[in-house]
């Protein structure tokens, strides 16, 4: 039996007296692919940060190829052949692919201080061919799609002779096709006997890709073993520590027949074409489609953030055309954006300040708009309870320090405070653990049962099929299909979203 590439033994780490990793021991056999799963806050990131040289252990040791490995900086970790493919990519968008790949070690032309462009372009072309990305080494990274950038990250790892590649939620911002391409590349890397760690909330992907799985819960190993010993249900049970009978709460109410929102003929050149649909009171309406199909663009136009050339939107018969987000919020619109960090929250501001963003005027006396702290605080406490925000998070704590799930609850709380009548949610559960997802679904149902109309955009098919009363399918800026709950069918939705043109998409 050969020595494992990495061996963790007895890793323990505490922050401010709270143990986030308790005596973690497991091995990564050379050439294996290990899935690492767990809820947010289970300790996955801390463990990987230890491996990446960002965090020091309190006790325990790591053996790399049989030798003690104590990285104190990310550079040291990289020099030992450990590469991270992050959620947020670490590329410089303003530089070319080749420059990004060779940034820290530009080869010089012999006897001159200048960069040997020819060599780096040749080497880059070879690497790009290896990962199957057919673009010029001189392309600026900012002109690449999210999936292509990820492939460039992998090329970078390969160019550094990485022995261990860690994928941290690699698929969250990828379209279905890009995901397939990534998975194909991963299986090629496996054939080359590269060792990999795959961290994801998408459990089906983990089961499909990995040969071994390690489940973390509250800083401990809740289970580990060969991938074929696990099923999605068993993984979820291990992750949450109790049996989750269902991923979705039971729906008590039903959509009504009263039209709340009527959208007709919405058109914006190159973005949307003739979009028409209605949203009923109490209905949860889903929108499915590939990345780039125009889903987020539709949401932004509905919320008054982007212009629209023609078409009408009416709320209970009254036209809403050309209203600003502010005016729409006053009419009961809410919009949870897909990017909570840059569009949903003020990351350095406190929980209380973030919750107050939408409703400050309500808690001021009308004339001078003084902040009346009392009524504001009461509303704040109530909403914290409603969204079940972690009670350990104080009102004055910066939201940056909260977990992804709790951050999303703050965004939800901010919008629930306006008592929304039309709630648009764009990828509401992205990067959020199973438990917090359930809470968010529960809130969506509660709101619908109170008569609001909910419009959910999601890339997760299971989510839409589990949650919605009706699903719209969008392709290239057009609505191509509509399925009531009785007709929900994975294949039909996918067919609609992919359509016939998908394979020509990249030929241009």
């Amino acid at each position, binding site marked *: 039996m050969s020595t494992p590439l990495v061996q963790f033994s007895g890793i323990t780490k505490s922050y401010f007296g709270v143990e986030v990793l308790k005596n973690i021991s497991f091995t990564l056999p050379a050439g294996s692919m290990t899935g690492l799963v767990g809820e947010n806050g289970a300790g996955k990131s801390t463990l990987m940060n230890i491996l990446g040289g960002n965090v020091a252990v309190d006790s325990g040791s790591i053996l790399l190829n049989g030798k003690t490995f104590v990285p104190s900086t990310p550079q040291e970790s990289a020099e030992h052949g450990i590469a991270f493919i992050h959620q947020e990519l670490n590329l410089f968008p303003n530089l070319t692919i080749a420059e990004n790949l060779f940034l820290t070690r530009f080869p010089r032309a012999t006897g001159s201080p200048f960069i040997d462009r020819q060599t780096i372009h040749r080497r880059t072309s070879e690497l790009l061919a290896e990962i199957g990305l057919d673009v010029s080494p001189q392309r600026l990274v900012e002109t690449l799609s999210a999936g292509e950038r990820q492939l460039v990250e992998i090329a970078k790892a390969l160019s550094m002779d990485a022995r261990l590649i860690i994928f941290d939620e690699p698929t969250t911002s990828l379209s279905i096709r890009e995901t397939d391409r990534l998975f194909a590349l991963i299986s090629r890397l496996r054939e080359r006997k590269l060792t990999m760690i795959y961290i994801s909330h998408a459990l089906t992907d983990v089961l499909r890709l990995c040969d071994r799985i390690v489940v973390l819960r509250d800083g401990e190993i809740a289970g580990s073993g060969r991938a074929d010993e696990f099923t999605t249900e068993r993984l979820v049970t291990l992750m949450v520590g109790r049996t989750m009978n269902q991923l979705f709460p039971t729906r008590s109410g039903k959509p009504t027949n009263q039209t709340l929102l009527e959208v007709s003929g919405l058109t914006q050149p190159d973005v949307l074409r003739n979009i028409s649909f209605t949203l009923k009171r109490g209905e949860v309406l889903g929108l499915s489609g590939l990345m780039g199909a125009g889903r987020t663009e539709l949401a932004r136009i509905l919320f008054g953030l982007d212009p629209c050339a023609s078409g009408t939107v009416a709320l209970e018969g009254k036209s809403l055309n050309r209203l600003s987000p502010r005016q*729409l919020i006053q009419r009961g619109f809410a919009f949870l954006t897909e990017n909570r960090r840059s*569009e949903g*929250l003020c990351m350095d501001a406190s929980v209380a*300040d973030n919750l107050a*963003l*939408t409703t400050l005027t309500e808690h001021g006396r009308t004339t001078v*708009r*003084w*902040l009346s702290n009392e009524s504001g605080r009461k509303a704040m406490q109530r909403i914290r309870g409603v969204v079940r925000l972690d009670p350990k998070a104080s009102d004055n704590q910066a939201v940056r320090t909260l977990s992804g799930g709790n951050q999303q609850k703050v965004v939800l709380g901010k919008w629930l405070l306006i008592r929304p009548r039309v709630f648009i949610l764009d990828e509401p559960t992205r990067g959020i653990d199973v438990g917090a997802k359930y809470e968010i679904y529960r809130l969506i149902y509660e709101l619908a049962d109170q008569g609001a109309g909910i419009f959910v955009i999601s890339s997760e098919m299971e989510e839409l099929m589990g949650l919605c009363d009706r699903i719209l399918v969008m392709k290239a800026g057009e609505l191509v299909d509509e399925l009531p709950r009785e007709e929900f069918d994975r294949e039909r939705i996918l067919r609609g979203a992919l359509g016939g043109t998908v394979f020509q998409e990249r030929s241009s």
Partner: protein
Amino acid sequence: MTVSSAASVESSSVALLRRLFLSNYLVLVLTVLFFISLAPFTPGFASANNLLGILAYLLPLFIAAIGLTAVMITGGIDLSVTSIIALTSVVGARIMTADGSGGSAAFGLCAMIGLGVALGAMNGLTVTVLRLPAFIVTLVSMMFLSGFAIWLTQSKNIDQLPQAFLQLGKHLPFALTITAVPGIAVHLLLRKTVFGRWLYAIGQNATTAHISGIPTRLITFAAYVLSGFCAALASVLLTGRLETASPVLGREILLDIIGATVIGGTSLFGGRGTIVGTFFGVLFLTVLDNALNLLNLSQFSITITKGSVILFAAVLDTMRQRIARQTV
């Protein structure tokens, strides 16, 4: 409570130092320490006359920094404050000296304020409607307005201003009132009103603020108007104190105003800053300037020292931010 041991005394004194270091009053404490340690060696530093002088010097600086603080909280900057000071000064003086009677003092004052507000509005409109970077907009305003002030006066000072007007800047109680009223008003505006919260939210994340229904353009515009208004008030005080209107009035204090605001804890990236902090920053810089002058240092060494102190303050502030973030 537990029995105090040597270790706990030590750790509590460390905790005290730490709290002091992170406190909002750090700049004030440093000013006082600086004053106490220099007073014995600096002739006349602690005299009543000198302290009143410091106060008189500080007021116009502070009032201009109030407006700048509001602008900087939104993530912007206003480089045109001192040229607004200069232009309002000469335009006001022109009006007041036009017929030679004292009756035009009130009219001249109103014109100065009105002009300041209008110039601030111009900056604000360019930033919010044309969406140009504040740095460029106010840099251009600065160049344009100072050039205009010099052209208007053919580079000459305007004297013989009405006494009623001069007293506003010369007579300390008046000057104090003119500074304190907007100072307290803006402080309350930032701390207690929706307007203030919106201002901070815009500086922290303008996109989030916009999506959350905050009228970001209107609020940003208002901040620049406020800055123009404050600059005009500063001009009233400066013109009165110097008893003459000058087209280059305040030219040398632009960096002091910005420096003091930053020392007072206002972030150049927006989202952070208080009027109290800005006051401490202005106080600190004024006391420092005064001490260096009394020590008979050359103008060059004064500038060099001031530069190093602002650098030191910036380093200190970055450290504080880092520690504060770790503590949470």
